[in-house]
């Protein structure tokens, strides 16, 4: 598995990287370390299976956030409903594994295809919507998702409120890995592939068209860019990213149910994108890590804060989430990635 990962690395063309040249080298080193983690940590028992699950979830959310990043950050279309595409991907994977007995890896392309179709179709009417109206339509989508999943005629597939249980795959060829370590490597490989595709896409003619549409829709149109085509396709591609993340989530979490895809999920993806940095690939990674860390530690953190400032009520994590969001909009509207690069420029400049 480690070899596959390096193969994916090898295709990164350093010259056109969005990162600086020197940083690319460090990116390789980082990826190599990440890929070797199961050998180092797993064998010596330094890193538990539970930690690998957490790491996998971070990577999964990073892919989901990247999907929203492509749409909102690079194409300027605001979506508050990406949880819907996450759900489509997750259910596609779960249904194919549970009912058709597919191996887990084969469900990923299917999740991508179904999400592209759903995303493209949703993007078509969304083409006529701008700014707030699009946010409104996707908001409605996000709120309605659990109910759509519970729809009676889908129950044969979705198993209704109960959801679907699936089982984690064991590593193939008798590799000396636990299933959590194996899934971690799979998720990592998928993530590297998808980030690499995203980077090349953004560096291409298409990527420039996307950004032109975001910055000057009218000028882009006059320059001969087929705005509506690009916008709908971007919606589809964005849904593919978030949907594949959903499928991976279902596979490593071994369970899907309508109530795992409530409005909060869409907000979490949005928060990840905004906190990480809305038009930045490293930002998507930061956002993914943030979403998982918050999900895991927010409760404890909130309790500490409540105790520290002697509040008479038990604050809930989402209050902190909300305040953090608003404060961030004032202090670092380009997210952590944007803030860091600004800081870096200042340091280099002085």
């Amino acid at each position, binding site marked *: 598995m480690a070899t596959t990962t390096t193969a994916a690395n090898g295709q990164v063309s350093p010259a056109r990287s969005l990162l600086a040249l020197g940083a690319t080298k460090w990116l390789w080193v980082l990826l190599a370390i990440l890929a070797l983690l199961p050998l180092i940590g797993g064998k010596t028992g330094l890193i538990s299976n539970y930690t690998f699950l957490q790491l996998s979830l971070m990577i999964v959310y990073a892919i989901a956030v990247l999907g929203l990043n492509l749409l*909102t950050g690079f194409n300027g279309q*605001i979506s*508050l409903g990406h949880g819907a595409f996450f759900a489509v991907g997750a259910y596609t994977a779960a249904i194919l594994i549970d009912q058709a007995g597919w191996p887990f890896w084969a469900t990923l392309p299917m999740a991508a295809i179904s999400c592209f179709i759903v995303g493209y179709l949703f993007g078509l*009417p969304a083409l*006529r*919507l701008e*700014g*707030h*109206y699009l*946010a*409104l*339509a996707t*908001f*409605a*989508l996000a*709120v*309605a998702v659990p*109910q*759509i999943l*519970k*729809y*009676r*005629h889908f129950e044969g597939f979705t198993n209704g409120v109960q959801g679907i249980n699936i089982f984690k795959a064991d590593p193939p060829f008798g590799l000396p890995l636990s299933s959590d370590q194996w899934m971690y490597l799979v998720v990592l490989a998928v993530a590297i592939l998808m980030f690499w595709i995203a980077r090349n896409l953004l560096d291409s003619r298409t990527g420039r068209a996307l950004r032109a549409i975001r910055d000057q829709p*009218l000028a882009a149109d006059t320059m001969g860019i087929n705005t509506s085509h690009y916008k709908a396709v971007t919606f589809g591609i964005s849904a593919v990213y978030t949907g594949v993340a959903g499928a991976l989530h279902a596979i490593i979490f071994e369970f899907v149910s309508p109530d795992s895809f409530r*409005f909060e999920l869409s*907000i979490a993806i*949005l928060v990840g994108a*905004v906190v990480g940095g*809305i038009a930045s690939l490293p930002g998507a990674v930061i956002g993914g890590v943030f979403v998982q860390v918050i999900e895991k530690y927010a409760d404890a953190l909130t309790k500490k804060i409540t105790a520290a400032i002697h509040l008479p*009520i*038990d*604050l*809930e*994590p*989402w*209050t902190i*989430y*909300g*305040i*953090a*969001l*608003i404060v961030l*909009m*004032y202090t670092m*509207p380009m997210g952590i990635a944007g803030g860091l690069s600004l800081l870096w420029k200042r340091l280099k400049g002085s």
Partner: protein
Amino acid sequence: MEQLIQQVASGLANGAIYACLALALVMIFVSTDHINFAQGEMAMFSAYLCWQLLEWGVTVWIALPAVAMLSFLIGVSIERVILRPLHNAPLLSVVVVFIGLLTIFHSLAGAIWGHTIKEFASPFPKVTFAGSGYIGPHQIGMIVVTLLLLLALFAFFRFTPLGLAMRAAAQNPTSARLAGVRVDWMLALGWGLAAAIGAVAGSLVAPAVYLEPNMMASILLYGFAGALVGGISSPGGAVAGGFIVGVLENLIAYFGNLLEKASGFYLIGNGEKLSVALIIVITVLTLKPSGLFGHVTVKRV
């Protein structure tokens, strides 16, 4: 037939609440061009405030205006403190701030009052009257209060200098400013009014749906749908739209039920309320974004 009348009547009652919420959304939209995603949670929070006052023994006819006033102040301060610095910020920042407000109000209500369902007594007397088989006293109360509120707002905007100033600020901020209208404060006033209207809507709907932090999700969605159907730039239209989607919601469930009885095929029912709202929202936005009564905005290129 009797059932149909009943459905329409209760649809009108729900519609009254949607109309209030739609009106609150329009208040903010016409003056700032923003769609307030936190409107539902703000209304929910106000409903909790009202409940708390009632628990402390305040009579409802004092509690309701008091909460409306308090919500007005909260609305004004949100605009002045949180949104004011973002007047020239990109749209995404504003939307994100709204989402932040939504989560704050939602979780604060949960933290302060807990997540268990609370009973909220209806402020209207339980009397029987001709036709009370079709519609309950609380439902009539909701409709009457909404209509009174509308009338008051209409009078405010039509006959008072302040109302005129607010309309001017919304229609042409630059000229209004030159004519001596303090546009910034007019925006804050719009926010305050929206919050107060939302408070009335929340307190009125709480007895019908029980009080809990999630109570506004579907109501807000129908408020959006109502505002869009009527035209999000037209206050009167939004109210009409609210009533329309209220009736539509019940009729769709009613005819879905009939269909199931007649053919045994379940198409749509009460479990699909949110999906119906989603379909209404998307249909209106795609086919007629200006709504039934809104005016089409022409953008100069």
